[in-house]
């Protein structure tokens, strides 16, 4: 099957005043047409840097792609010129950003902000673009779209602004939509609405979706597959079932364990101790080892490769080596895993 997107060994660094920040240190993943991939991981794990790199929007001149390929429909985006990337951005690949409050231009009418992409990529005249933009506003569930077209962002609530941002992203029917924590900045009820909207739209347009989030709870709802990132690397990747019922990486255990569930009130949350490593000088060996209860001696000397668990499931931990001691996930995480399958059964 032909892949829509393949990211191979992507490394991204920032040159800063204090030295080189290795934000992304060799990321691999792929994506099929129409598929939804969730990228999860703690703050600072490199999720946003990965997605802005896909868009070709790394801040210049600090941000540098050190190595790797981003194959989109077989073509390497890393090698594209600025002009070529401008043709792809907003047309083939679109992005929804984290903070709806600041991602719209405060001094430009909402309608114009949606029409801009249409005029640029689809060669529409203003009248057509206006019609299409009104339809888009309607599609993302904004009442009275023709009135709203002529308003400014500050006249919209946070949730509505995020709908506008989604409308902008959808304007040219992108083949790939990247949503970087699209709901983090919103109220819980609004979050659910926006998620529903994204799911619905994705089904209708059949675009592929990369969904970045902190929140594993959201993932089960939205995604087909999940990539777990830690310290600039993908440490485990698999289908939703793989990750939720059969997680292999201790970091994934930690993420699952720290997720509150309905009946988790009585038990301790399994939290990951410590804080993420300093990406200015990442530790030798496995970056997660210092926080890992189940770390092996080898973690301090050598980075674990990706071990294959199944055709769809890979994880980067020495625990999967055939000679490593067999270690079971902690009890609380196990119970959590069973809980998920129970919930699944009930649905």
């Amino acid at each position, binding site marked *: 099957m032909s892949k829509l997107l393949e990211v191979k060994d992507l490394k991204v660094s920032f040159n800063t005043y*204090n030295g080189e920040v290795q934000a992304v240190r060799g990321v691999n993943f792929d994506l099929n047409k129409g598929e939804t991939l969730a990228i999860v991981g703690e703050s600072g794990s490199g999720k946003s840097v990965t997605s802005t790199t896909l868009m070709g929007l790394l801040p210049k001149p600090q941000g540098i792609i050190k190595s790797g390929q981003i194959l989109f429909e077989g073509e390497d985006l890393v090698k594209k010129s600025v002009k070529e990337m401008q043709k792809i951005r907003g047309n083939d690949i679109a992005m929804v950003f984290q903070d709806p409050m600041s991602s719209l231009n405060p001094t430009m009418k909402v309608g114009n902000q949606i029409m801009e992409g249409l005029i640029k990529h689809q060669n529409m005249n203003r009248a057509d673009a206006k019609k299409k933009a009104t339809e888009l506003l309607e599609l993302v569930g904004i009442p009275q779209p023709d009135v709203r077209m002529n308003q400014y962002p500050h006249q919209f609530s946070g949730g509505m602004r995020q709908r506008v941002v989604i409308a902008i992203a959808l304007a040219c029917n992108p083949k790939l939509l990247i949503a970087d924590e699209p709901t983090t900045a919103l109220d819980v009820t609004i979050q659910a609405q926006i998620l529903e909207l994204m799911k619905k739209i994705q089904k209708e347009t059949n675009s592929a979706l990369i969904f970045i989030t902190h929140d594993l709870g959201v993932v089960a709802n939205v995604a087909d597959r999940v990539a777990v990132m830690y310290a600039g690397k993908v440490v485990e990747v698999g289908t939703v079932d793989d990750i939720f019922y059969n997680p292999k990486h201790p970091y994934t255990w930690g993420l699952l364990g720290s997720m509150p569930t309905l009946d988790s009130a009585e038990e301790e949350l399994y939290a990951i*101790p410590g804080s993420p490593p300093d990406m200015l000088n990442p530790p030798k060996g496995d970056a997660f080892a210092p926080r890992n209860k189940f*770390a092996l001696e080898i973690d301090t000397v050598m980075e674990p490769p990706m071990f294959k668990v199944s055709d769809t499931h890979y994880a980067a931990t020495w625990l999967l080596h055939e*000679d490593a*001691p067999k270690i079971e996930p902690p009890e609380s995480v196990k119970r959590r895993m069973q809980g998920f399958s129970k919930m699944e059964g009930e649905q």
Partner: protein
Amino acid sequence: MATNDQNKIPKELLVPLVRKEDTSEKISGPSRTFMQDARRAFFKNKLAVISVFLVVIIILMSIFGPQMNEYGTDDQDLTRAKMPPHVPVLEKISWLGLDGTLSGKYRGNDVEAATANAIARYDNKEEFIDIKVVDEGDGSRNSAVVDATYHIYDAKDMSDQYFWLGTDTLGRDQWTRLWEGTRVSLIIAFVAAVIGLVVGVAYGGIAGFYGGKVDNVMMRIIEILVGIPNLVVVLLMMLVLQPGITSIVVALSITGWTGMARIVRGEVLKLKNQEFVLAARTLGQSNGKVIMKHLLPNISGIIIINTMFTIPDAIFFEAFLSFIGLGIVPPDASLGSLINAGFDNLRLYPYLLVYPAVLISLIMIAFNLIGDGLRDAFDPKMHK
């Protein structure tokens, strides 16, 4: 995906890690306080550091400069008026303009006439004037040009006297007056800045700290005051008061504190409701203690920055007032009054303008750079 290179893996290490210490909680690198960070950032800013040096040197010179030669501020002597700069040793290097000569281009219908013009201009002391012909001319009006250099120190038989920066129209030593003037300008600026600081911090602090009605009334008053342009207030004050240092300080202080008051109020309002202040108050610390221990240290940065920027403003205003005749009036000197006098003689004696103009520019640039440096240093965004 990645292949497992089985051969190179040291299998004996596939055992649980024995931790020597709890590395997960270790904090990397020593932690620094905000002030230390700010200081470090400031001293990394070369321009700001150079500016500090410059300001220190200028302050020292304004204290000791006038004593460095035997001339006083108001030693008038018309026989030695308008002497150009004359510095030992450096007088040998002609392009520095410190050799005690006056020079200029003079025109006439022919070389003879031009020369005569020059000689007439320079006290008719022909034997002390070097003439160099620039343009022979063709006999038409003012077509001939000569370069005349007048050795005025020799002409006045004062070649053993050295007025380092020359003398002004009344024969007073320009070096002495320059540093005296700098001293006056700096005193005015510092005093005005300190008064603005004290009043502004007190007013803004009270308004912000007590909030509510007090704040409301105090802020209305400021709003009205701010509506009245500083320039107008200062001009009116200067008209009513006797010209002099005190009047300028008073005039500048009356208007100078409102900016500081607004900033301090804003900061205090912001800080007041932050947890550490609330905690301190819940623990029963007195208002005074809360202010001294928690509020002041946290707004000190912004206060310092603001004060640094008011100093060049005050220096400019003093110079401006003296320039238009409302500030320091002769025989007292200030940078502004020296510049004013310099302009009157710009054509013939440009050195009277050059030195005070350069000095005031240096002072203003230095203070602005220090202010910029401080602002960057105190901005947490700048140093992570």
